[in-house]
């Protein structure tokens, strides 16, 4: 079996690949920002609102987490127009990703909030902080710091999940790869190239999120510790 990898026909289409990669990046970035915002709102609502709301949020989280992203995408893109709600493929894809990440991140945030010990909350209350202040400063912030690694992996999964948008003809990286395959017939080569691009994005994203987590949480925790030891020295 004579078989040679021939990357030239694929690399001739570099501009198309760059454009598609850019779309994947934009799509993933928007989904990550909006999705974690939804997750944060859902967790806040679950903690601060009365019990009735909790049922709805749990329903949302469990339904989304236990059905495939692809089927959610089909319901939004093919199903909603039946009810009169129409949108372009790109926005349908983004909406599906946002709803999906919203549920996953809500669950991650919840785990973080639940890990905060009751005595911390009571201590905050006894210092006459309001419920909202206690939630924001004593529960949420340390909770996010604690679950940051899980959150980071979830963001990477969301980025990888953007490939599913190609199923409804969004020309992001996977969609473009499929098109290039049908133009050049170099299927092995193009999918290797696309996979390498995804891998690079995933690794860079991992590094960036790690650095961001360090800046947001570790650095501050360290400076706090420095302050408290210097106070201790004075006493």
């Amino acid at each position: 079996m004579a078989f040679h990898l021939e990357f030239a026909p694929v690399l001739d289409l570099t501009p198309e690949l760059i454009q598609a990669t850019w779309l994947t990046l934009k799509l993933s970035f928007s989904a990550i920002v909006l999705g974690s915002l939804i997750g944060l709102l859902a967790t806040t609502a679950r903690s601060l609102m009365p019990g009735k709301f909790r049922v709805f949020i749990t329903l949302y989280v469990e339904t989304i987490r236990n059905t495939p992203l692809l089927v959610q995408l089909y319901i939004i893109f093919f199903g909603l127009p039946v009810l009169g709600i129409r949108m372009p493929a790109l926005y349908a894809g983004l909406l599906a990703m946002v709803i999906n990440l919203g549920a996953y991140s809500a669950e991650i945030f919840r785990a973080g909030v639940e890990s905060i010990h009751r005595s911390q909350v009571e201590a905050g209350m006894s210092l006459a902080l309001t419920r909202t202040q206690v939630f924001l400063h004593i529960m949420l912030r340390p909770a996010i710091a604690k679950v940051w690694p899980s959150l980071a992996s979830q963001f990477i999964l969301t980025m990888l999940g953007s490939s599913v948008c190609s199923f409804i003809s969004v020309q992001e990286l996977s969609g473009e790869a499929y098109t290039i395959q049908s133009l050049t017939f170099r299927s092995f080569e193009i999918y290797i190239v696309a996979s390498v691009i995804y891998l690079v994005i995933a690794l860079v994203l991992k590094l960036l999120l790690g650095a961001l987590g360090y800046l947001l949480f570790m650095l501050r925790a360290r400076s706090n510790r420095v302050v408290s030891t210097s106070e201790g020295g004075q006493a």
Partner: protein
Amino acid sequence: MIHSFNLQDLLFLVRSAGWTLVLTLVATAVGGALALVISVARLSTHTALREATRLYIVVVQGIPVLMVLFLSYYGLAHAGLDLPPIVAASLALSIYVSAYLGDIWRGAIQSVHRQQWEASASLALTRMEQYRYVILPQSVRIALPPTVGFLVQLVKNTSIVSIVSVIELTRAGQLVNNTTFEPFKVFVTVAVIYLIICYPMSRLSRYLEEKSRVYRDR
């Protein structure tokens, strides 16, 4: 022939959900066997073996399942190995499972206390025997909740193979939609069937996790 979504369609969807489960089982069996080898190799004393498996996990976890599927279906066909869709799909899903479970199980093995290794070594067990009688039985308990949790992800990700026209639940949904033109009803039904499969698994995973936490706290 256009007709409205009826009982026959529903039965077709349920039957196709059977294929979703078959794909899940095959990928779990093949991928799980691979994952066991990977997780042990990942902790091997040979540097080359350790680094090779680490690289494998990073690579597979860094690319979408869809790309793995395209590589094993279109890619291998192009290279002269023309696999039937169902085989290519099983291959792709098994590779996916092997990297994720391999990583989960590596963590489980590592979380067994060092002293267990030292104690079993002092009893003159070989490394193989240490794994067989001391380490693995303990790591299974730690690994079980996240493994069940991952299987939920697997069930959902089998939907991706619909693109190479393996008739599992999602593909069946597309076919029914093509004849009924009732996408909302059809895909919500498909989603409900996935929910019926996945929700009990999610609950089981959480239950196992809580149980193991109680056990550890005691």
